[in-house]
């Protein structure tokens, strides 16, 4: 190992500092760009309440919840992917590849299907939808974990179980869409594709409280997850309660995924790509990487949302389609360079 290669491996230790300014810039762009363009000075004026009243409505009521929700959903999915990758020691683990996203979608569709009446109206409050997403996500995560219980460390088989069960959930979702009557079936289709344009302050509050709870819950997991980078037996010999750590990390990931999916739909590839991106730019500590992953996820979805508004304007395309278009090339590039 030569000194130069060593330097390459050590990477730039502090590249993560670029994240806060990027996020701030994306936040302001998200407030300014869209069907009606607001230059930065008008955005600032609206933010401070000194601008025109219509600008204030656009910024505060329409775009701010949307930008915040994109960032929160992205951060939640990124963090979920990070926890899953660490818990399973599997670089391919992510909410989507482990079938958790499809499970949450199935939960929501089942909910809409079971509680729609003849007139296509919901018979119970929409508030229960996140709970249904969480139930679906939990069932599918538990099923994947149970199927793979003997070789949770075997990277391929775990993902195969996830993809297989995800395909099953996906098939059931398709059948339910056809079977109907689903409450606002057209909206369900858009929601499935992943979308943040209907964000409300209520959803932002819901999602941010879940993310906050998950962050607090993740703090005591950071150190055992660090040790869990070794194999199970070695980590256990170091004093780590392996099953408890793994179960808690997967549980938090399920919670984050369910919350993000129930409000923002199937936004894919963030959970897979954000942790890999963070690994490239963050300092090596587990906690620092978790935070960097949060930021990367937030940035990816916020950028995707801006692109979704502008790329085919006036047509808006699903945010999930854009995250896939951003995430996939990034992922392939990372794989090509890192052989990870």
């Amino acid at each position, binding site marked *: *190992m030569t000194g130069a290669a*060593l330097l390459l*491996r050590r990477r730039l230790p502090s590249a993560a500092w670029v994240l806060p300014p990027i996020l701030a810039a994306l936040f302001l762009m998200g407030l300014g760009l869209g069907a009606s363009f607001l230059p930065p000075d008008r955005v600032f004026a609206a933010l401070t309440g000194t601008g025109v009243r219509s600008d204030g409505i656009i910024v505060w009521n329409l775009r701010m919840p949307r930008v915040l929700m994109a960032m929160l959903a992205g951060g939640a999915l990124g963090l979920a992917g990070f926890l899953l990758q660490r818990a399973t020691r599997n670089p391919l683990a992510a909410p989507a590849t482990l079938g958790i996203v499809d499970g949450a979608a199935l939960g929501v569709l089942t909910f809409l299907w079971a509680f729609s009446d003849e007139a296509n109206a919901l018979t119970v409050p929409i508030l229960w939808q996140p709970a249904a997403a969480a139930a679906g996500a939990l069932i599918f995560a538990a099923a994947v974990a149970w199927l793979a219980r003997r070789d949770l460390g075997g990277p391929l088989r775990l993902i195969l179980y996830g993809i297989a069960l995800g395909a099953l959930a996906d098939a059931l979702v398709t059948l339910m869409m056809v079977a109907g009557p689903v409450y606002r079936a057209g909206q369900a289709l858009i929601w499935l594709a992943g979308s943040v344009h209907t964000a409300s302050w209520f959803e932002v509050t819901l999602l941010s409280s879940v993310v906050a709870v998950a962050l607090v819950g993740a*703090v*005591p997991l950071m*150190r*055992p997850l*660090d*040790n869990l*980078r*070794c*194999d199970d*037996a*070695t980590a*256990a*010999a*170091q*004093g*780590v*309660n392996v099953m408890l750590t793994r179960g808690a990390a997967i549980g938090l990931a399920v919670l984050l995924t369910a919350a993000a999916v129930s409000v923002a739909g199937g936004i894919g590839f963030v959970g897979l790509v954000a942790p890999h991106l963070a*690994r490239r730019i963050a300092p*090596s500590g587990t906690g620092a990487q978790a935070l960097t992953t949060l930021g990367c996820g937030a940035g990816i979805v916020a950028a995707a949302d801006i692109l979704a508004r502008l790329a085919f304007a006036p047509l808006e395309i699903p945010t999930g389609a854009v995250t896939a278009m951003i995430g996939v090339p990034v992922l392939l590039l990372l794989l090509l360079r890192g052989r*990870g």
Partner: protein
Amino acid sequence: MTLRLDAAQGGYGGRPVLEGIDLALGAGEVVALCGPNGCGKSTALRALRGALPLTAGAAMLGDRKVTEIGAKALAREVAMLGQTPVPPEEIVVRDLVALGRYAHRRAFAPLAAADHEAIDRALHRTGAWSIADRPVADLSGGQLQRSWIAMTVAQDAPHLLLDEPTNHLDMGHALVVMDLIRRLAREDGRAVAVVLHDLNLAARHADRIVLMANGQVQADGAPREVLSEQRLALVYDTVCAVLDHPKGGPLIVPLGSQRTL
């Protein structure tokens, strides 16, 4: 406190491997677990660590069952290195060794001065100081094994369990590792149990050899007593000559197999 197995029975998925084992580790001594493939050496080591569910008997640390001790508390008492530990993908030796401090660290606090001391000491002790900043992926087999042992040393546990630590090492590196293990027992007063295939390494470096076969202890004592020609023929199905090592102790020379292939 003594770490020991009392009439331990257990195995994997209903298949019994240990059929009533008694084994005790004394402070300051190196105990080598030897025996033919599949005799239960590694399983006995896992049982000592509480990593194997026992169907009868118990693994005891002093007067407590190891299974009743919390994960961190047990890790402060017993360190163990498996046969094929898997290192994290991107990590330097020093950070790997730091993982051994897990059970000693306070919640939310960064590595304390005591942790840094223990890490530095372990690196020096095991001769891994010069490679402390190298990525684990670039190490040779001998260097990697040294790093792993440094990690278990940093754990600062009075009991040390090592499963075939000389596996895949050449003659020279194997000797270095065994000398290190011996010093960890002698100088620090640790109780060390080490699974070994090479009887001559065991005879040279262990204070005591526990010879196992079919999940039972066949003999337990000083190398000279345990490694008799008759017993080796019985346990290994192999005719051996037991000679005198030029530096003392027995020297085993296999002469021929009693098995026909």
